[in-house]
């Protein structure tokens, strides 16, 4: 089995594609460098990131697959799927070898898997449009901690900037130790600790309490269906929601 070891970034991926075309080798797997234990049966090829090669691949992808193909490949890299790199690699490889937009080849294995992988990322983003819970701090900044399956923080920030207009907020991914920090107009992604010390505003507890009471009151007890609830709001998300944590 041939394994490509690359840097987990768009440049890293495109450098690997350049290498694959240049050397005429297709990998059976693509993994992030340093994230894999070597064994003796597989053949490992470590690929260095080279900006210039990456740029040439990107140009070709845009030329054949259009801007959307390039964008979707970036989205795919945000996926928490362990094979995300290989999935993105295969799709990009197909685009380059077919020399056209392959996004409609939904019956093709590589395209189909790619399609459902980015769909998962978008679906989780949409889920967290709803499931993010802000706490108001004493300084007026809204703070939300969460732990998504995919790396969606940078996809969430623009939504909340539009919506909260001028209110500064922080969305903190405690699993990846990173945070989207916004001043109400723009946002930046920053590395963080996995905990934050918060100084909450005076009313925060009271509003949270009202919300918990509302949540209880709006349930129709005669129609209990926790299986449905579990499907729509998986338990792994709940420790960040005031209405479900104890």
């Amino acid at each position, binding site marked *: 089995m041939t394994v490509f070891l690359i840097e987990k970034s768009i440049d890293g991926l495109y450098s690997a594609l350049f290498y694959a075309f240049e050397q005429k080798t297709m990998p059976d797997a693509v993994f992030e460098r340093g994230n894999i234990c070597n064994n003796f049966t597989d053949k490992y090829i470590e690929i260095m990131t080279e900006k210039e090669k990456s740029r040439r691949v990107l140009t070709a992808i845009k030329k054949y697959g259009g801007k959307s193909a390039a964008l979707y490949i970036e989205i795919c890299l945000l996926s928490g799927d362990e094979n995300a790199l290989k999935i993105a690699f295969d799709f990009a490889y197909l685009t380059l070898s077919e020399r056209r937009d392959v996004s409609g080849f939904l019956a093709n294995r590589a395209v189909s898997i790619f399609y459902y992988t980015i769909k998962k990322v978008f679906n989780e983003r949409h889920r967290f449009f*709803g499931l993010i819970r802000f706490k108001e701090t004493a300084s007026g900044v809204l703070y939300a901690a969460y732990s998504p399956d995919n790396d969606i923080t940078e996809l969430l920030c623009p939504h909340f900037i539009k919506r909260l207009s001028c209110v500064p907020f922080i969305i903190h991914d405690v699993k990846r130790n990173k945070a989207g920090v916004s001043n109400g107009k723009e946002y930046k992604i920053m590395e963080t600790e996995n905990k934050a010390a918060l100084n909450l505003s005076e009313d925060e507890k*009271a509003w949270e309490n009202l919300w918990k009471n509302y949540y209880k009151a709006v349930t129709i007890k005669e129609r209990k*269906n926790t299986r*449905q609830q579990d499907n729509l709001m998986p338990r792994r998300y709940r420790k960040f929601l005031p209405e479900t944590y104890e």
Partner: protein
Amino acid sequence: MIDEKKLVILTEGAKYDVSCSSSGSRRKNKYGEIGNACFAGICHSYTQDGRCISLLKMLMSNDCIYDCKYCINRATNDVARATATPDEICELVISFYRRNYIEGLFLSSAIVKSPNHTMEMLYLTAYKLRKNYHFNGYIHLKGIPGADSALIEAAGLIVDRMSFNIELPSETSLKLLAPQKNKTAIVSPMKTLALDKYYESPYKRRRDFLPAGQTTQMIIGASPESDAHILKLTEYMYSYYRLKRVYYSSYIPTNFETSLLPYSPAPKIREHRLYQADWLLRYYGFTADEITGKDGNLSLEYDPKCAWAIRHMELFPVEVNTAPLDMLLRVPGIGVRTASRILIARKHAKLDFDALKRLRVVLKRAMHFITCGGKFIGSKSEYDLSRLLAGGDGQNMTQLSMFEFDTALSALNGEL
């Protein structure tokens, strides 16, 4: 800040209203103000009954002068009463919205003093929320039957969606169970909201009149109407009142003092089948007459599309590689999204059964109705077929109804 007990009372009173969707509006944020609407709608939480919480659903007051038999807030019922002021509600909405608990407000009310007074207070709340609290999120306002049409139009200009509940599927039942309400009072404002002028410029261009349209709701199983009757009515309302949605709510007994109402709740599977049929009307090109069988009710064993397909085996199987969209949509196991994926995929390659699996066609049902490149892998006997589709072999009726019960509950999901 609104009192905790008051909020609980007003929520308890509003929760039986099914509609909680926040979709259909593209209301924009104004710089420096709070909120916007998302066209697809956003669910913010899910309760233990599996329904989503998208909007803060509450009554302005549950102090009703009417005495509708099926309603928990009827005048003669002994429940705690409360009324919230517009400012209390506005403050609550803004505080919840900032914390991303909710997508907007669903405000309804019992009839306080008179329909006009109630509608005025509802309007005032929505107005304050928009103008004083600078809120651009989603507002769904319940219309009060019998209120002045000028009030209703004014409300339509500032909220995203309005709804008048027709409550019961026929005039006779309405007279019997809600004697103080009458059909004209409910239907005429619905007609007002559907007037052509709102869908032409300048309204349409500015998209400022009810961007998310109007909806309605009726109670199923409290009165004896058949599914055929209900679906006919639904179809009629979709085409003449420009409704976005019709909601069905299974009857839940809350009043044991009258012999006019059934003692037990309506089966939830019936509600589920009606929703499935409703989807067929809106997205699949079916008519109400096609959907219901000879006896006027939907089959409880299998979904309405399967039931229709089994009655029309002469039209099947269809070839997935060549069938037109409207025929693909009629195949059980192929939905709107799957059908569009098939259309895209078959431009590039001939589809086989493996390809269909990748396109997420539900082959378990679809295989009996399609061929792939001329190949057929479904059941050839019609007897086997209806058994297979009803829930697999070896399952007796009791097990079946348990299974169906669960699926029925899923109809409560917020997407509905």
